[in-house]
């Protein structure tokens, strides 16, 4: 494999300085501290700097340079980059600020830099970043005040400030890192490049990230899907709430997109999303030190009843199962523990438990094949020797390929024990909630690891060409919002839609209604009226003799309530009765791409927000998961004696709609609301549709043609 930015053996620091407090000083000092390769300070002001020869320009350096770190003011960065390019330096870190984050001029400067880099085939990290660290080669190309200890956790962050905060915290908690990357403005290298590097990095067992936006969500998903099979990826993606999204928008200049889209994308790609820094590092410590549990069965060993129950509750809340011990295990516990001890899970070794009792209990439960992980709870009692008990737990856990976590509750009395646990790779959490949350995350990861991602199935009766020419036709109308025109596209992908005709006179309405069969539904057709029933634009159950009156009434209502709406005529449709209503939607999310939405229908859908999302195209497993995720899903399987609905046909519709969305990204939005689902064996039918197409269609089309090549 080609050496990466982490493998640099010679580093130039452009803008090196001898003045303490300057970035150019800190970078050289950090390198000098631990880097074993060559260091070339560059600054025309000096001839020597911190014991190194100092150069006027990178071009004056005789040897080859693998990596340049640039700390000069933003304005001269392009000139320096050109020199780096001519020197054939492959990787550059631009620490300097004053780019996109400062406004229009900075953005132009950043574009210029990216242009220079691509001309020379150079890769840039930053600008406006802290730099990066490879603890194993001693490369600390940052201006951070600390160098982290070695470990197997890699961290990348879109926020430089968070980087320094974490370095400081890690120092106190004695957490080690393998690689450390501050992404900055992501003018060139982004989370995707580092996900790829860290995914194949033998020194990294866990990848952590703090992200505010994704440069290429699709690429991220593709990579993450692969990497997450090898090692856990934990991402803290901020901007979860709408206030947070607004703050992120202002801070990064990137539209956050809907949070549920990120949730879905991460889940489908096997990325574990965490909500807080505490969670991030709680998880990271366990993943970096403990084996992944094989299942969700937890044993709890405690010296007090209350905390034991709290831990049990916490596990149950997170869908973990409490192990039932085998007869053999129960026998060992019964024999080794005092008669008043509880030998069933949670095992209570009583308040006077010493190291030998913990050793016995932990060993016994670990030996039980019905146990996948153990949480050892300890509370300070009069005779508790936390260090001795910690030693006993460490000893018992050694050699067992099972997850062991500690929950030593307390403060000073626990310090010695906690210290010993940490030093021996058993993470300790001060509260049962946190320990349970960690176990549950590890169980989730064990499932991610096992999960085989199947390609979307091939579908019969899909006519891609037909949709393409239908879309061409729609574009020539000169607008982007459509209604039942979407039916043609759906039919071409094998989705059943309502029989329907657009008419512009009473006579034609009657003719169409006779063809479709009575009773019919009449609906006003207008691109400007979104909720037709709100303006009296829908007439149900219309019989032959009512067609004329209903037709006139609809037009009258539409003109009265929405006088400015463009009215294209009236739809005559077959009347569907019975069945349950669901909604299926497509929306293209910035940064991620086309998403499919599923939910139960009806007028309360906007209030309940009981919907689920997935990134298109979907495979059958994903379709089933997204359907069962909806709380009201059980209604479809029939409650209180109702016949079950035809769930299979809904699955099929979701598969087909997801394929339609993936094949034709010019569909920005598609709302199929409602889709009526009939009892088992009778299928489902799309009753109404709305669609918005992307106006930048042509550029997308070109892009698509490019991909085909």
């Amino acid at each position, binding site marked *: 494999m080609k050496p990466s930015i982490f493998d640099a053996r010679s580093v130039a620091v452009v803008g090196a300085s001898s003045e303490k407090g300057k970035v150019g000083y800190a970078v050289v000092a950090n390198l000098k501290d631990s880097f074993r390769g060559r260091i070339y300070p560059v600054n025309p002001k000096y001839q020597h700097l911190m014991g190194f020869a100092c150069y006027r320009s990178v071009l004056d350096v005789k040897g080859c340079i693998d990596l340049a770190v640039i700390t000069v003011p933003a304005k001269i960065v392009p000139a320096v980059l050109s020199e780096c390019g001519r020197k054939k330096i492959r990787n550059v870190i631009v620490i300097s600020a004053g780019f996109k984050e400062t*406004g229009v001029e900075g953005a132009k400067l950043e574009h210029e830099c990216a242009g220079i880099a691509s001309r020379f085939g150079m890769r840039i990290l930053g600008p406006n970043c802290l730099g990066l660290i490879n603890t194993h080669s001693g490369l600390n190309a940052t201006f951070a005040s600390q160098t982290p200890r070695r470990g197997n956790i890699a961290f990348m962050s879109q926020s430089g400030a968070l980087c320094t905060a974490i370095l400081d915290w890690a120092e106190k908690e004695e957490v080690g890192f393998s690689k450390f990357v501050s992404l900055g403005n992501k003018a060139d290298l982004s989370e995707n490049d580092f996900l790829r590097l860290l995914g194949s990095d033998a020194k990294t067992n866990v990848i952590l990230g703090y992200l505010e936006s994704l440069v290429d969500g699709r690429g991220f998903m593709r990579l993450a899907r692969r990497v997450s099979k090898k090692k856990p990826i934990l991402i803290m993606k901020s901007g979860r709430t709408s206030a947070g999204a607004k703050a992120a*928008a202002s801070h990064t200049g990137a*539209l956050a997109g809907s949070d549920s889209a990120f949730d879905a994308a991460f889940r489908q790609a096997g990325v574990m999303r965490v909500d807080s820094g505490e969670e991030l590092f709680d998880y990271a410590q366990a993943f970096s030190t403990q084996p992944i549990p094989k299942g969700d069965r937890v044993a709890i060993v405690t010296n007090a009843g209350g905390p034991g129950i709290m831990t049990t509750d916490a596990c149950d809340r997170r869908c973990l199962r409490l192990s039932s011990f085998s007869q053999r295990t129960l026998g060992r516990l019964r024999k080794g523990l005092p008669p008043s001890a509880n030998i069933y899970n949670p095992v209570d070794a009583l308040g006077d438990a010493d190291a030998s009792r913990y050793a016995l209990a932990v060993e016994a439960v670990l030996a039980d094949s019905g146990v996948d992980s153990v949480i050892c709870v300890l509370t300070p009692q009069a005779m508790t020797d936390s260090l001795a008990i910690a030693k006993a737990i460490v000893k018992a856990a050694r050699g067992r390929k099972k997850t062991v976590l500690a929950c030593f509750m307390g403060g000073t009395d626990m310090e010695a024990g906690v210290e010993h646990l940490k030093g021996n790779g058993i993470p300790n959490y001060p509260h049962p909630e946190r320990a349970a949350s960690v176990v549950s995350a590890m169980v989730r990861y064990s499932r991610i690891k096992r999960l085989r991602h199947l390609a979307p199935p091939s579908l019969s009766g899909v006519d891609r060409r037909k949709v393409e020419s239908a879309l061409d036709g729609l574009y020539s109308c000169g607008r982007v919002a459509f209604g039942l025109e979407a039916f043609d596209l759906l039919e071409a992908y094998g989705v059943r839609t309502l029989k329907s005709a657009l008419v512009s006179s009473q006579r034609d309405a009657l003719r169409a209604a006779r063809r479709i069969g009575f009773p019919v539904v009449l609906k006003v057709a207008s691109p400007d009226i979104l909720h037709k029933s709100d303006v009296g634009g829908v007439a149900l159950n219309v019989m032959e003799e009512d067609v004329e009156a209903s037709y006139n009434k609809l037009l009258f209502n539409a003109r009265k309530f929405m006088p400015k709406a463009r009215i294209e005529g009236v739809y005559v449709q077959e009347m569907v009765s019975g069945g349950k209503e669901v909604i299926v939607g497509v*929306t293209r999310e910035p940064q991620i791409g086309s998403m499919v939405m599923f939910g139960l229908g009806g007028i309360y859908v906007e209030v309940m927000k009981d919907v689920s999302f997935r990134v298109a195209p979907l495979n059958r497993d994903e379709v089933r998961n997204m359907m069962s995720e909806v709380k009201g899903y059980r209604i479809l399987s029939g409650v209180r004696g109702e016949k079950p609905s035809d769930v299979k046909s809904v699955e099929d519709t979701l598969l087909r709609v997801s394929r339609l969305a993936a094949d034709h990204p010019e569909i920005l939005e598609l709302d199929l609301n409602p889709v009526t689902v009939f009892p088992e064996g009778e299928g489902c039918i799309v009753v109404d549709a709305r669609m918005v197409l992307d*106006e930048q269609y042509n550029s997308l089309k070109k892009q698509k043609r490019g991909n085909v090549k």
Partner: protein
Amino acid sequence: MKSLFIGSSESRSGKSALCVGLGSILKDKGLNVGYMKPVGSLARTVNKTTYEDDAFKTREALGLSESPDKICPVLISEELVDAKLKGVKKYHKNKIIKTFQDLSAGKDVMILEGMGDIGGGSMFDLSDPEVAALLDAKIILTAKYDSDYVLDRVISDVKLIGDPKQLVGVIFTDVSPANARRIKRTVTPFLRKKKIKVLGYIPKDTLLKSASVADIAEELGGRIICCEEYKNELVKSFIIGAMSPEHALKYFRRSTDKAVITGGDRADIVLAALETQTKCVVLTGNLRPSAQVLAAAEDAKTPLIVVPHDTVTAVTLVEDLIDKITAWEGAKLARMKQFMRNHIDLKAIYRELSVK
């Protein structure tokens, strides 16, 4: 020298657009074309000169050099109305005739524009037919085809003109494709029976009604704070950005070539707008966005305009602007001329002017 008077049934029916289009077509034929708006109302003062706003723009579009205050000699104001009501004598007619003589000297054709609706100015005996008669000009009547009831107005306006020989014909404006068919097949024969000639129509068109980004900035007294090089892009509609960000995208996607009007602190809305096809974003409340948002706008090549108004005021002003046809830059003028050549009986007009 011949004169044509362009009057209309109602204000905002596209008189100025017709003046510019017709004037420009006549100029292309090598004629020396003059323009005058004898009676106007929308006064505006720049550098101590008061002049009529619309007339000023039409004069610019026709590339005329006469000073703007000359183009429109009588500006009706509250003061003038008050004086009239109190019986103060003013010599408006003399002023109009004098100005007309000055402006028409050396011209082949004079195009005269009416005030608002055809009866406007009657208080001063300066309604469109009266002024046209005064200057010996024939009248072209324009009317916005909003429904068939426009014919009520047209027929009563023709009665107001009185002498049928004074009318060249009627031009319908803002005509939808369905109404265009109706005009050709049904309306023209109907009016012919009433001895009213239909000269043609101008189709409904979003380009004609668009305003440039620079126009919007000027109308709102705002500053374009980035991408000024795109200030000549045309805006055809606008959307108010006051919704939650996830809804914003849904709305913004539904319309193209739009201006988005929102508070300067709504970074989320601005970014959603930049994600969709947006010609400019109007930031109200004099609030500048963060540097990052500015950079994103730069990336999207979309101008941001900071304006002092609140959102409601800004919306009203932009609404007015987009409803009017103003700012005659290249694409719009070309479109107007193309429409006139395709849908208007220019030969009939040439005959009136005795040009070939």
